């Protein structure tokens, strides 16, 4: 049986030590844009885009008048190494309400992971951390919604006003299976899953008396029990356990106010959100969003990171435009 030293020596030698992380944050804070630093550092990104929000990547990798020749060259190389597959379901207006009329995004993603044929990248199981391959799911939230629509569609209830309770459970099972597969040792590339934040508190039920004297049941939340977790798009039950699939749970947050406001990637517990990283001595507590992911990966792997995609000014402008 090899010792831990043997295992670590082998990983260092082969480079097969994937980083698998969950990056959470509120909408518009720059989770998708943060991926660009990895592309600039020479990583190949395969992005399963459920959010249809990858325009920011195009914006950040587009040549900018203030870019130096080196940056222009890096951007050109990065653009060749980013593969985005946008998977969305079709909606249409029916009786003043928008409803889904197809639910193919989930099965599209499953097929992509089995074999990324469209760009000749092969099965995700053949991607390797040593070759700087990264699988990105953007975002877990919308992936969960796609899973739910898939369940509804299969059961002929895509147009139904409200899913059944069991539909959420079935969608959660689909999502959990996907995460378990991605987290398994069968997937040997780096993995980044982006997600929005959901606050979930400990809930319990109590008996109440209604105004007419009849008895009822109410769900109440334990005071101060709310914690932030990844939003899965399939209800609240799965959110608290998503973190178990990852050894690295980071967060994008806005720090400061006014002119000094800036976006950062945070790697240590923050407020009521239980963040974590698998190398507390090697990584920083906070990184700037422009270079953060590349630096984090480099710190985790004992490498040096590459340059930012663009000037801080351009990044801040692009990100602000994205949130308007």
């Amino acid at each position: 049986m090899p010792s831990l030293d043997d295992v670590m020596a082998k990983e260092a030698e082969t480079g097969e030590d994937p980083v698998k992380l969950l990056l959470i944050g509120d909408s518009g804070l720059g989770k998708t844009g943060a991926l660009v630093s990895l592309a600039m550092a020479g990583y190949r990104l395969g992005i399963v885009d459920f959010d249809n929000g990858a325009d920011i990547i195009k914006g950040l990798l587009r040549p900018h008048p203030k870019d130096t020749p080196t940056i222009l060259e890096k951007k050109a190389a990065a653009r060749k190494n980013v593969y985005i597959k946008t998977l969305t379901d079709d909606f249409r207006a029916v009786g003043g309400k928008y409803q889904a009329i197809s639910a193919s995004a989930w099965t599209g993603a499953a097929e992509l992971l089995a074999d990324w044929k469209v760009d000749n990248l092969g099965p995700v199981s053949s991607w390797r951390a040593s070759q700087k391959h990264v699988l990105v799911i953007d975002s877990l939230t919308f992936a969960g919604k796609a899973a739910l629509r898939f369940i509804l569609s299969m059961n002929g209830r895509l147009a139904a006003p409200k899913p059944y309770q069991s539909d959420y459970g079935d969608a959660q099972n689909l999502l959990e299976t996907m995460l378990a597969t991605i987290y398994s040792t069968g997937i040997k590339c780096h993995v980044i899953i982006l997600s929005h934040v959901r606050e979930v508190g400990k809930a319990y039920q109590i008996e109440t008396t209604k105004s007419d004297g009849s008895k009822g049941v109410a769900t109440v939340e334990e005071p101060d029990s709310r914690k932030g977790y990844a939003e899965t798009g399939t209800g609240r039950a799965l959110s608290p356990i998503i973190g178990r699939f990852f050894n690295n749970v980071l967060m994008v947050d806005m720090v400061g106010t006014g002119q000094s406001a800036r976006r950062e990637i945070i790697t240590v517990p923050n407020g009521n959100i239980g963040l974590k990283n698998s190398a507390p001595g090697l990584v920083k507590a906070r990184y700037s969003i422009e270079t953060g992911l590349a630096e984090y990966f480099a710190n985790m792997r004992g490498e040096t990171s590459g340059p930012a995609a663009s000037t801080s000014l351009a990044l801040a402008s692009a990100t602000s435009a994205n949130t308007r």
Partner: protein
Amino acid sequence: MLDLIRQATLNNSAFSTILPGLQIAWDSTSMGAFKECPRKYYLSIVLGYVPRETSVHLIFGQMYHTALEAYDHAKARGHDHKSALRVAVKVAMVISWNKELGRPWQSDSTYKNRLTLVRSVIWYLDQFENDPLETIILANGKPAVELSFRFDVGYRSVCSGENFLLCGHLDRVVKFNERNWILDRKTTQHQIDDRFWAQWNPNNQMSTYDFAGNVGFNAKTAGIIIDGAQLLVGGTRFKRGIVQKDDDQRNEWHMDFGLQLQMAEHYAKISYWPMNDKSCGNYGGCPYQGICAKSPAVRQQWLEGSMHKRVWDPLQVRGDI
């Protein structure tokens, strides 16, 4: 013993004519019996003894399948939904009529009887009138329902040199989200919850169908959709779920299947199939438990007295190949 086996398998084309008792053509039913208990397999498949009373679950399930199959055939012939529904209901009424006794099929079950059969057929077809799962139409113009398959599974008998075949029938092959899926219908009295779905993976039958779809038909099916119907006294609820496997799981199943065939060949060679006395209480109790509890010397008399014989031949085609 050998004479008994030869006599029993004489008219069963699934068995070897070189090594008596060696089944060459397997389906999920025969392999399922073998995996549960080799002795049960010997009694039910090799010798062909089955209980006189057919299980109400089996009868109901077959009728439900047949009625819905009739709907698919009618739609493929150009009937609209209402017309095809009438065809399905008529078939349900006809097949649940006991011609010999001149009266409806009598069932002791409050959940599975003629009323719940017809109701379930109507409710299902009403709920899925605009079914997103479209039955694939084969090149011959017929719908892909009760689709029979039979192919060389890649193993050969050491004793007889014959190639083993994998056979079966797929309830329905459908297109959903531009992908092919195998659909299998299941009826149950129990709630269609996590426990219901858990029983289908791993599952002998589902693994066989998945292998057939991907390897036998080379169709690269996206998975299997279990089309569940929960039968209640006052209604029927429908729920669909999926079973998906990757190539690694298929390879594992194929290897396991080969090992089971080796065991089956060994038992045929020694003309002896041992009991798995840990399986006797499963699935509500094995119907052969009473037989196996008797002394070997008297078992044959008890078999002949309490059971009747039928030939289980996986090579018998039901639908279209």
